[in-house]
C-alpha cells in the first residue's frame, strides 16, 4: 500500500467526523507520512493514530478554515 492509498483510506473512513478538516501527504523523519488536519485536537478518536495508519506515520495538525485571499 502506498502512502497515497493509506491517506485515501483514512479520508474515506473519517471524513464525516466533525473533527476532520482535510488530509495531506508529507514526511516524517525522511519517510512518507500522512498529515491529518483537524478542526480540534481535543477528540479521543485521534488517539487511534498514535501508532500510525496502515503502516504510515500520521502527523496531526490543527488548521482553520481555508479561504481565498483577495482582500475586500
Amino acid at each position: 500500500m502506498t502512502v497515497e492509498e493509506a491517506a485515501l483510506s483514512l479520508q474515506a473512513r473519517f471524513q464525516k467526523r466533525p473533527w476532520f478538516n482535510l488530509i495531506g501527504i508529507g514526511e516524517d523523519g525522511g519517510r512518507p507520512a500522512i498529515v491529518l488536519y483537524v478542526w480540534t485536537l481535543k477528540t479521543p478518536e485521534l488517539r487511534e493514530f498514535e501508532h500510525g495508519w496502515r503502516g504510515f506515520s500520521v502527523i496531526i495538525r490543527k488548521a482553520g478554515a481555508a479561504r481565498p485571499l483577495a482582500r475586500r
Partner: protein
Amino acid sequence: MDAAEALARQLQERFLIGGNFVLAGPAGGSFAKRPGSVQAVTTDAFEDVYDDAGFAGLAVQAVGFEHGVDSPTVHVYVTKGSKKAEREVEATEGPLKVRINRVGRVTVRPEAASTSVHRGQVFVHDGRIACGSSCAPSGENYAGTFGAILRVGGDLHILSNNHVLAACNHTPIGVPILSPSPKDASANPQVPVPRAIARHSRICELRSGDPALVAPCHEDVAIASLIDSNLVSSRQGAGAESYDTPSTTDALRTGMRVKKWGRTTGLTTGAVESKVLPFAMPYKFNLFSATVWFTEVWTIRADQGTSFALGGDSGSLVVDESGSHAVGLVFAATGAGDLAYVVPMAHVLTCFGGASLVRGHHA
C-alpha cells in the same frame, strides 16, 4: 486581571486573528506577529471550545466583561452571525457565562481605516512596480498580489490568481489591471497612484461541483498582458531583503524552507508541510459563490507566531529560502494565516500552453 477580563481578552485576540472583528479587517496580523501574544493567554479549555471552525460567520464589533459582580458575564457584541456560531461561542465551559449581544451596523471611521495594519503595500524598484505589490481589476473593490512576470508565447504578462485578476472567471478580457488596487490608494505621496499596468487576458477556469461530476481544479491562476514593460520590475518586494524573481522552479517538498512577498504581509517565511488530498474551497465573490474542489495543492506552515499569508496576499510567488527557485503560487490560507495553500509552480507554468518566469526585468 480577573477571570472575566482574561476570558474577554482571549476572545478578543482570537476574534482578531480569525478576522471576525468588523473594524479590524480579516486576521489581526499584528497580533499574530506579536511574539507569544496568543499562546501566552490561550488555555487548553479555550482552544477546545473556540477552534476556528466555530467562528465562521461571526462579525464582532467588541468584546466586554462585567466587573465587580459575583458572577461576571463576558459579552460579545456582534453585528451579524449564524446561530450555530453564536451557540458555539456561548457554549463556553467553565464558571463564566458568555453572552452574544446583537448590535447595529458599525460605522468605520476614516481615521480607523488610515491606521489599519492591513494597508496594502506597493513595492517600488527603480521607479517601477515590483512583484509582490497590490493589484486588482479596474472597477473591483478588493486587492490581491501581482506575483511575477511571465513570458507566454513571446509576450509579457503578470501572474496572479483567477480570483484576483479575473474575479473568479468574470472579468472581461481587456479590462485594465491596476496597481496598486484602488482599495489601496493613499494620500501619501510616496505611494504610487493606481495605474493600469496590464490588461486581463487569460484564466485557468475555476469549476464548481462534486468531484465525481466535475473535474477538480489544479490551480487558481490567471494572467494579464503587460501594457508597458517599463512599468514593472521582476524584483520581488523592495529593500535589502528583496530579490529578483527566479527563472527556474523546484518541486515542493515537505520541510523545504520558503518565503514570499505579498501585498498584505510583505516578506514572510515558512516551511512546506504537505501535499493535500482533494479538498473543497468555498469562494464567495459577487458573481461567483461556489465550492471549488482542488487537487495537487500543497500547504505551507508559517513560522511560529507569524502569518505566512493573509487576505490580499493571493497571487504571491513562493520561492525557496535562497530565492533561487520558484516553488508555488499562494491562493488561500486560514484566517490566521498560519497555514497557506499554494499551487506548485511547475504546474502553473504548464498553463496557457507553456510559460516561463521572467528574471532580470528592470531588476
